[in-house]
């Protein structure tokens, strides 16, 4: 037995243990890769390909136009108007989301009555369907029966009911406001989780050093939140930038395209104007814009982190 046991089977004909495990791992991720390729990678490449054609939505007949779509897009007012609106919307709602999110998180970080109930209630806007949110707010904004106008007129702040969604700058302000309401709980929860890991000794030390509440926030809390905020800002910017449902359902892009953002343009081109190729071109441009911003943001934060760290 010993002599036989000492002879090793030729390793070349069998896979090593680590190779066998590697194969199993690849097998487990195969369904994911398959689905990804089919519904994400292929359509993505498709979209770029389609943008080089002019396609009529209803018949799906198309003809090659090369980069014409992009040329038209960059010359026309639609793209630039939409880009501008998207930026205003994104920056507006992002700023408010962060400010309110941090503020409410700070508020909820104290030992208040029924704290976990408060936290859950604050999360509601984030989890309800955009459809529900839109219906609720349109009802609230209603000029005749809406409670908001009623309160404003009653309290004497305005003489006439406000047209929240049909006039500018109200429309942009309204979508920014509703967007903030819907999405700021995300910031609250994320920041709250981080706040709860800050050791209380830091605050006590600051107190002993004579810092007041504002100084404590600025010098202790904010630096601790920096990491989380960088990630939150990145995520929310991307998600707000590509938001379709909320704006489409609240204003449809109106009045007169003053709240028409890039995602809405894509939809309108494809299913309103029946120009699928053009719509694809818009969507590709939108992605490029996002890519530029994302890279710039990541570059800056990486530099700031290595410089300040």
């Amino acid at each position: 037995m010993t002599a036989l046991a000492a002879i090793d089977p030729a390793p070349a004909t069998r896979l090593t243990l680590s190779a066998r495990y590697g194969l199993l791992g690849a097998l487990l991720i195969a369904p994911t890769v398959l689905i990804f390729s089919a519904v994400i990678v292929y359509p993505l490449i498709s979209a770029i390909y389609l943008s080089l054609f002019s396609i009529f939505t209803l018949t799906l007949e198309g003809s090659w136009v090369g980069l014409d779509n992009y040329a038209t897009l960059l010359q026309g007012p639609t793209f630039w108007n939409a880009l501008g609106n998207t930026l205003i919307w994104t920056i507006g709602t992002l700023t408010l989301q962060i400010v309110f999110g941090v503020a409410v998180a700070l508020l909820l970080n104290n030992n208040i009555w029924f704290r976990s109930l408060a936290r859950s209630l604050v999360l509601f806007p984030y989890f309800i369907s955009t459809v529900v949110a839109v219906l609720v707010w349109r009802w609230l904004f209603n000029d005749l029966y809406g409670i908001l106008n009623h309160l404003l007129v009653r309290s004497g702040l305005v003489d006439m009911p406000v047209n929240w969604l049909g006039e500018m700058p109200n429309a942009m302000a309204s979508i920014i406001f509703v967007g903030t309401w819907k999405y700021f709980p995300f910031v609250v929860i994320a920041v709250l989780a981080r706040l709860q890991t800050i050791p209380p000794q830091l605050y006590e030390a600051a107190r002993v050093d004579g810092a007041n509440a504002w100084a404590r926030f600025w010098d202790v809390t904010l630096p601790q939140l920096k990491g989380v905020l960088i990630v939150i800002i990145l995520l929310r910017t991307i998600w707000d930038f590509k938001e379709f449902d909320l704006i489409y359902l609240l204003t449809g892009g109106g009045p007169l395209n003053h709240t028409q953002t890039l995602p809405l343009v894509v939809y309108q081109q494809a299913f309103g104007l029946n120009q699928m190729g053009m719509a694809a071109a818009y969507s590709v441009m939108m992605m490029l814009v996002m890519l530029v911003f994302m890279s710039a943001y990541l570059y800056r934060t990486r530099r700031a982190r290595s410089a300040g760290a």
Partner: protein
Amino acid sequence: MKPASFPRQLLLNVAAWAVVLAVIFPLVWMVVTSVKPQAELFRIPPSFLPDAITFEHYWRLLAETPFLTYFRNSLVLAVSTTVLVIVVATLGAYSLVRFSYPGRETLAQLVLFTYLLPSVVLIIPLYLMMVSVGLANTIASLVVAYTTFALPYALWLLRSFMAGIPEDLESAALVDGASRIGAFWDVIFPQALPGIISTALFTFILAWNEYLYALVLVNSDQARPLTTGVMNMLITSFNIEWSLLMAASVMMSLPLIVIFTFLQGYLTSGFGAGGVKG
């Protein structure tokens, strides 16, 4: 925390709860409106609290509109998507976290990238794809489309959860005589279960709330889910039936209310694990 003085405590509590109530006021108003009798609804000036509570709008919704069909469709849709995504993502996350093979890191980066993809880019090719495959206007087409955003998200969350399970546990199982699949089933899966439930809830909610894909891919009441169905009810009727719409909104949010009441812990833990951490 240092015990604050009572007036300060009181102020904090009042402020906090004032904010919370202001935030959920719109939703409270939604419920209030849904139980107000029709006549009271269109009273000017509007009343705060209903004079009488009625469920007539709910009955009308269920009896006179396709609401139940939409509800059924949404249910089938959300459950199917969740099951599919959870199974694929659990195996995928396990693979990404506990195995090494060429290309693994690239895949992980790719997952992150697709997480941030705008659906608007994909609607056109997906629409064309569904038409050519003959799946246009079916719930199945929506399930396929929903995986585009549900799968990366679930992978991201599950990966985070699984990475939190100590490696030693799996090693111990392997030494104790388990195969890798055996170790997964006996040890990793039970440990990951809270995370899986959390991810399943998130996925369900995402699928339940989705609007754009439903708008683009489905046109018939047979397959329409709640989101597009309810909005359809809004624009096809002569006058906007706000009472019905508010009742519909409440009913649409039913799964959410159920989850919040009974399974809330899973939601907040999901936030912590994958919601923010890169």
